[in-house]
C-alpha cells in the first residue's frame, strides 16, 4: 500500500494541528491561572505542545515540498484547512474544564504516540519518541488534577462532572477512523485508531472512578474537525487571536 505525499501531509497536519490548537488554548491561561504554580505548569504544557507542533508541521511542510515552513502552516492557513480534532479547539471554560479537556486529550495522545513510535515512517517514529516523554508527564499531571478536583469539594465535583458531560461527546472523533486513517494503518505509518479505544477506556475509566465522576451514557460523537469538514465556531475566533500578528504585518519577524 503506497501513500502519496498529499496523504502523508494531511496526516501530519492532523498531528500538528492538534498540538498547535491545544497549545494555543492552554497558553491562554498564561497569567490567569488560579495559582502561580498552576500558571507555570500550564505554560510549560503549552510550550511542550508548541514545540511538538514545530516538529509535526515542520515535517508536513517538508513532505509537501511547496516551500512552505511550519510557521506558514501555523499562521497563514485559514480555519477550513485545519485538521485538528474538535476537542482541542473547545474553549477553556473554567480551570476544571480546561484540565478535563487536557486529560481526555492527553490519554489519547499518549496511546497514539506509543503506537507511532513503531511507525514504518522513521521520521514519524522519531518525533513520537521525542514527544512521548513530555506527554507522559502531561497525562500524569492532568489525571492527578482531574482526580483531585473530581474527588474534592462538592463545588469542584459539580464543575468537573459538568466538564466531563460537556466534553465527553468529543472523545469519539479521536478513535473513529476515516479513509485517511485506514490508509495510514494499512501502510503501517499509524495505528488502527479503533484498536486504541480499549486501552483508552480502561485508563479513563480508572481515573474517573478515582475522581468519583460518571462517564455520560451514549456513544454520540461530534465529528468534522480532523477531516476539516466542519470545525466548531470556536476555532475561527481562536485563529483571529493566534494569527493576528502575521495577518496584520505579513512577514514580520524578530
Amino acid at each position: 500500500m503506497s501513500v502519496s505525499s498529499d496523504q502523508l501531509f494531511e496526516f501530519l497536519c492532523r498531528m500538528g494541528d492538534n498540538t498547535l490548537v491545544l497549545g494555543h488554548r492552554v497558553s491562554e491561561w498564561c497569567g490567569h491561572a488560579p495559582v502561580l504554580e498552576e500558571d507555570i505548569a500550564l505554560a510549560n504544557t503549552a510550550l511542550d505542545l508548541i514545540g511538538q507542533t514545530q516538529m509535526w508541521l515542520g515535517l508536513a511542510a517538508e513532505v509537501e515540498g511547496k516551500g512552505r515552513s511550519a510557521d506558514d502552516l501555523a499562521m497563514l492557513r485559514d480555519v477550513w484547512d485545519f485538521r485538528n480534532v474538535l476537542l482541542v479547539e473547545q474553549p477553556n471554560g473554567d480551570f476544571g474544564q480546561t484540565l478535563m479537556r487536557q486529560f481526555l486529550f492527553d490519554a489519547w495522545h499518549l496511546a497514539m504516540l506509543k503506537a507511532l513510535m513503531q511507525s514504518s515512517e522513521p521520521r514519524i517514529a522519531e518525533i513520537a519518541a521525542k514527544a512521548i516523554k513530555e506527554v507522559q508527564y502531561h497525562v500524569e499531571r492532568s489525571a492527578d488534577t482531574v482526580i483531585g478536583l473530581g474527588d474534592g469539594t462538592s463545588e469542584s465535583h459539580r464543575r468537573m462532572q459538568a466538564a466531563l458531560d460537556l466534553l465527553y461527546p468529543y472523545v469519539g472523533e479521536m478513535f473513529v477512523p476515516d479513509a485517511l486513517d485506514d490508509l495510514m494503518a494499512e501502510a503501517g505509518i499509524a495505528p488502527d485508531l479503533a484498536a486504541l479505544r480499549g486501552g483508552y477506556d480502561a485508563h479513563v475509566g480508572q481515573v474517573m472512578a478515582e475522581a468519583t465522576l460518571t462517564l455520560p451514557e451514549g456513544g454520540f460523537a461530534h465529528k468534522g474537525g480532523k477531516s476539516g469538514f466542519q470545525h466548531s465556531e470556536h476555532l475561527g475566533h481562536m485563529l483571529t487571536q493566534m494569527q493576528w500578528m502575521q495577518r496584520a504585518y505579513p512577514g514580520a519577524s524578530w
Partner: protein
Amino acid sequence: MSSPNSAYPDTPEQTTKPKRHEWPLWEVFIRGQHGMSHRHVGSLHAPDAEMAIKNARDVYTRRNEGVSIWVVEARHISASSPSDKGPLYEPSESKVYRHPTFFDIPEDVGAM
C-alpha cells in the same frame, strides 16, 4: 468587648471570619546535575507532597537544573532563632584551629 474599630462604633464587628483555604507551603530542595547534595532553591504551595514535587518540577527545573527533588512541608522545619546568634555562633569565631587547614592532604584523597 471593645470594638477594634473605635472610630466607627456603629460598624458591627465581624465575629466569624470566612475561612480561607490555602494550600500548605513546601520548601523545595534540588540536587543539580553535578552536585552531591540537595540545595534549597525556594518554596511553593501545593495540596500534597505528590503535587508539590510536580509543581517543583514545573517551577524549578525548567532549565534542566536537577536530577532529584525533595520537598518538605515548611511547618516541619525547625529553625534557630536569629536572636540566639551570639551564644550559638560567636564562640567558634576565635577558634581557628578547628579549621582543617593545618594538615597537608595527601593527593590520593582527591576532592574533599
